């Protein structure tokens, strides 16, 4: 099954054909440690290559070399037979190679058009020619199907809208080759489909595309060819139509490994968390659900549906306007994160870097941060205590890497495990996980899933919010589906098929959203639900 020959593509182009971007024997090492070994990739115009591999397999290094961000130690690249040796990103752009970063990099205060043309703003009599950039920006935005006004500032736009701008910015360079580095990591299903539509349009125009993603289903959908890296070496190159997901996983991790979710053990009848009528004006309204002890309760919905906002409110990160929260049957007043923690509610937030971890501090310090008072004796906390507490959790979560170095130097998967460990120092009654495996490799993902199940089996009530349907449906006993800030339904595991959940997630928000006027909204929300039940 595994072919190591990179020069044959499924449309039958011959080896000697020099059309396209051809990388031969790319190698890179840092301080003597090889991170990329002799990688061959052939990207033809109008072709889409799906690049897969675990974190640290060399995907980012490959794309950085092609985009001129880092220089290879060995190997060569040609474009249409002409040697291509980019020393910096601007060289790559001049040669028609653009990279769309995983993380969106925008200047929020500047306008959409200014962000698109940043660094090369056209001037007229010494000042920026606004009419010109707005007109041109509009053209590129239309190309990606965006309705965003180029004159408005980027601040306040949704992540999906910003992703469109990011693509429009790449297009404005009129590239012949585009690398998408995990564009869907921060997008929901609908936004991802939108990106795919744009990729299809680009391919029609003869643009060659490298698409990097951890989501194997979608990469199969979008790519013509799938290339897999493992430990810096190319281990597979297949036509996308001829490979299954299990085979991809096998190639990535280098071992047999079934990517399946076993059914969770049944939950108890004891209620761990009970939420009634939780509302926050303009954000979400009328949220009602119970989570049992031992239950994994999923939150599904599109990005922007209000899932994160609901769980943040339960954990005390934001304040509700109305509603009641009970933990183990007792009403709790949650005014801030501390009172949430004291009530036994722990939350692993979605944004690891901005909200979860202090990247400059060590792993051990991050893990014990919320618990220093509990871990100190006579008001004094020692490094020994911090280290020993962290080490216990390191073994439990299979964290690979040192915990006495800044946590920012660990891989994404290990960072996520450190973040999870932080909330397991003191066993929570309720554990909320918002996007628990974002930007995490397959191996770490499995450990995290098993940990979630193991915790539920000890009687913790677990809430999982995820944009990956497979993840949330595979883990959960029941799934709450949200759209437009409203709770659409709670589905049992048996009923929670991807089709059913997507249909609910896409259900229309009433034109006059109840969120605009929370008081009248109550009633209107009830009618919405009733119509749905009928």
């Amino acid at each position, binding site marked *: 099954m595994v072919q190591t020959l990179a020069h044959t593509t499924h449309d039958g182009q011959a080896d000697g054909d020099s059309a396209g971007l051809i990388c031969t024997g790319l190698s890179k090492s840092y301080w003597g*440690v090889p991170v990329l070994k002799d990688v061959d990739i052939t990207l033809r115009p109008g072709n889409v290559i799906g690049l897969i591999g675990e974190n640290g397999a060399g995907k980012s290094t490959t794309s950085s070399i092609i985009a001129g961000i880092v220089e290879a130690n060995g190997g060569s690249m040609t474009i249409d037979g002409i040697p291509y040796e980019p020393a910096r990103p601007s060289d790559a752009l001049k040669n028609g190679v653009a990279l769309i970063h995983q993380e969106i990099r925008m200047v929020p205060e500047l306008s959409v058009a200014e962000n698109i043309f940043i660094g090369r703003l056209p001037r007229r009599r010494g000042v920026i020619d606004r009419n010109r950039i707005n007109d041109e920006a509009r053209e590129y935005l239309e190309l990606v199907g965006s309705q965003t006004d180029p004159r408005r500032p980027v601040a306040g736009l949704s992540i999906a809208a910003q992703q469109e701008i990011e693509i429009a910015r790449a297009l404005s360079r009129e590239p012949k080759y585009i690398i998408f580095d995990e564009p869907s990591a921060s997008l929901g299903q609908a936004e991802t489909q939108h990106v795919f539509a744009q990729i299809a349009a680009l391919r029609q125009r003869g643009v060659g595309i490298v698409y990097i993603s951890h989501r194997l289903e979608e990469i199969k959908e979008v790519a013509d060819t799938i290339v897999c890296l493992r430990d810096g070496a190319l281990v597979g190159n297949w036509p996308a139509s001829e490979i299954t997901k299990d085979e991809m996983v096998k190639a990535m*991790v280098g071992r047999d490994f079934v990517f399946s979710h076993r059914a969770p053990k049944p939950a108890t009848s004891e209620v761990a968390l009970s939420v009634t009528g939780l509302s926050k004006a303009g954000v979400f309204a009328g949220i009602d659900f119970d989570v049992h002890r031992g239950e994994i309760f999923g939150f599904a919905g599109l990005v922007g549906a209000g899932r994160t906002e609901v769980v943040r409110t339960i954990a005390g990160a934001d304040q509700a306007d109305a509603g009641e929260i009970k933990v183990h049957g007792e009403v709790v007043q949650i005014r801030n994160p*501390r009172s949430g923690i*004291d009530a036994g509610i722990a939350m692993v937030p979605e944004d690891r870097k901005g909200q979860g971890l202090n990247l400059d501090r060590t792993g051990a310090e991050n893990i014990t*941060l*919320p618990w220093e008072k509990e871990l*100190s004796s006579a008001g004094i906390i020692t490094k020994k205590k911090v280290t020993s507490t962290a080490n216990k959790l390191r073994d439990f979560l299979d964290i690979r890497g040192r915990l006495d170095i800044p946590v920012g130097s660990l891989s994404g998967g290990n960072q996520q495990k450190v973040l999870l460990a932080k909330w397991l120092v003191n066993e929570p009654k309720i554990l909320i996980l918002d996007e628990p495996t974002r930007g995490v490799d397959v191996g770490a993902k499995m450990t995290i899933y098993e940990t979630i*199940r*193991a915790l539920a089996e000890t009687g913790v009530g677990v809430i999982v919010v995820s944009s990956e349907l497979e993840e949330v449906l595979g883990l959960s006993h029941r799934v709450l589906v949200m759209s437009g800030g409203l709770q659409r339904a709670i589905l049992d595991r048996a009923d929670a098929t991807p089709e059913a959940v997507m249909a609910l997630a896409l259900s229309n928000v009433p034109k006059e959203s109840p969120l605009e006027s929370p008081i009248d909204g109550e009633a209107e929300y009830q009618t919405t639900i009733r119509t749905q039940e009928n």
Partner: protein
Amino acid sequence: MAIIDRNMTPPRPDSSPAHGEVAPTSAASVNTSRFRRIMSQIPGPLIGLIVIFVALSFLSPYFLTPRNLLNILSQVSAVGVMSVGALLIILLGGIDLSVGSVLALSSMSMAAMYKMAGWPFEVALLAGLIVGALVGLINGILTAYGKLQPFIATLATMSAAAGLALFITNGNPITGFPDWFIAITATSILGIPIEGVILVAIFAIAAFWLKFRPSGRALYAIGGNEEVARLSGLPVRRAKILVYTIAGLLAAVAGLLVTSRLDSAQPTAGAADLLNVIAVVVIGGASLSGGSGSLLGTFVGLLIIGVLNNGMSLLNVSANLQPVVIGAVIAAAVLTDRKSSRRHT
């Protein structure tokens, strides 16, 4: 405090070694890397201090006398006490511009209550300390609850406190304090001036707090990433208010030391201290963006400033040129510090 039972081990998909593990390197490179590691553990400011110290020992015969060295400790005591508060605030990612004015205001308040209002001196002294803490409390409330940027909030209180200090006596100094009060800055214990003892004690207490007490360690977390700290349940606003209040109190303590040394409360005392205080903290390796810095570094920074000023006076460097040298040292300290921290990553 029930730490999860570790017997509950989740099954793992594999047990292959972690990525990126490097094979053992040769003995020679181990040696150089060990040397480098030891070198990188010596803080840059300390190396700077030793260089300056050795240079001055050769340049001036008076420099390396015990009397002169103890003198330096006395000279820097007021700035040193304030720099403790400044470090705490800078760890939080804040800044306090009001320290110099608070020094003057608390000194003038104490003097006015003693001399003009006729309060017992001990009560007046306590009131002076409370005035300093109060201004700090206002700084804390403005930044924590008013959400003012610390620069703006403390700019406002700096102006107000400076004005009040002048208003009390219409700009005139107040003199004539009890003998025991004057003696604080004129007496030594075992050869060490009392103000030096006070200075070191304040550094030691604060360093202990930062290293071992959860509420002290929290400052690093808050300064490193406030949202992470908040979501971890740390009392961010309470910590800010506490730290600004401590800084105000310490500025008042510095005010008492200055008043004692001069036997006079001056409404414009401390006006030049602000920049020295920030210079000390920055030379000591703290980052103005918060989350990194140590009191040991700050103490070394304090000695660098003290030794430099003292040495330049001994060498008859023009008083007008001395700030130029200090400026160069600030830039050099931060430049080398940035280089070494880049090397670490």
